[in-house]
């Protein structure tokens, strides 16, 4: 249904590695979001963007960073991954009229 894509879907890496989680959407939405979700648990907003060159931190403090150079692309980067970063990361975008969020399939990250 949703034209929002995330890669990779699964990632297992060692501590200290730098990683980038990719998110792209083809719907032309200005607003994009990153949520962190432990399996079966609630979603916590970690970053969002109003549009190109705009990034804001969400409610949950995160050591990750994001960038928004193009409307359709909103990557998330961890400079030095730690086991505490193990989680599922969900990317989303939203339209205003009518209001609706669209979620990607998620990236399940495991840091050993």
């Amino acid at each position: 249904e949703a034209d929002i894509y995330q890669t990779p879907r699964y990632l297992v890496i060692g501590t200290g590695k730098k990683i980038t989680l990719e998110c792209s959407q083809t719907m032309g939405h200005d607003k994009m979001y990153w949520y962190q979700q432990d399996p079966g648990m609630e979603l916590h907003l970690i970053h969002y963007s109003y549009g190109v060159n705009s990034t804001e931190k969400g409610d949950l403090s995160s050591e990750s960073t994001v960038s928004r150079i193009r409307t359709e692309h909103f990557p998330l980067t961890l400079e030095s991954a730690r086991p505490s970063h193990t989680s599922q990361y969900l990317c989303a975008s939203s339209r205003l009229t009518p209001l609706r969020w669209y979620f990607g399939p998620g990236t399940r990250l495991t840091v050993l």
Partner: protein
Amino acid sequence: QQQVKQSPQSLIVQKGGISIINCAYENTAFDYFPWYQQFPGKGPALLIAIRPDVSEKKEGRFTISFNKSAKQFSLHIMDSQPGDSATYFCAASIWQTGANNLFFGTGTRLTVIP
């Protein structure tokens, strides 16, 4: 602080029964209340949503009941089916700092027994 409180945490229902999930909120500035369905390994998908000026919305077997004065809303799944087994999240949206932000409940894991 949990902006949206959801219960129960888990629910087991017989096939054909009614599943009811409840949510409550405090911030009266919330103006959009969606429900999401999430299967394992997938992102949440919009199931049904309501605005606070409407008391009920029905789409197929899914109904949202909204009580503005009590600041509560609930999801009713009629004639529950095994394929409905998933985690359900209620959410509430508010316009903040130039964007609509979405706050989620803690989720309800629904299991429908054949």
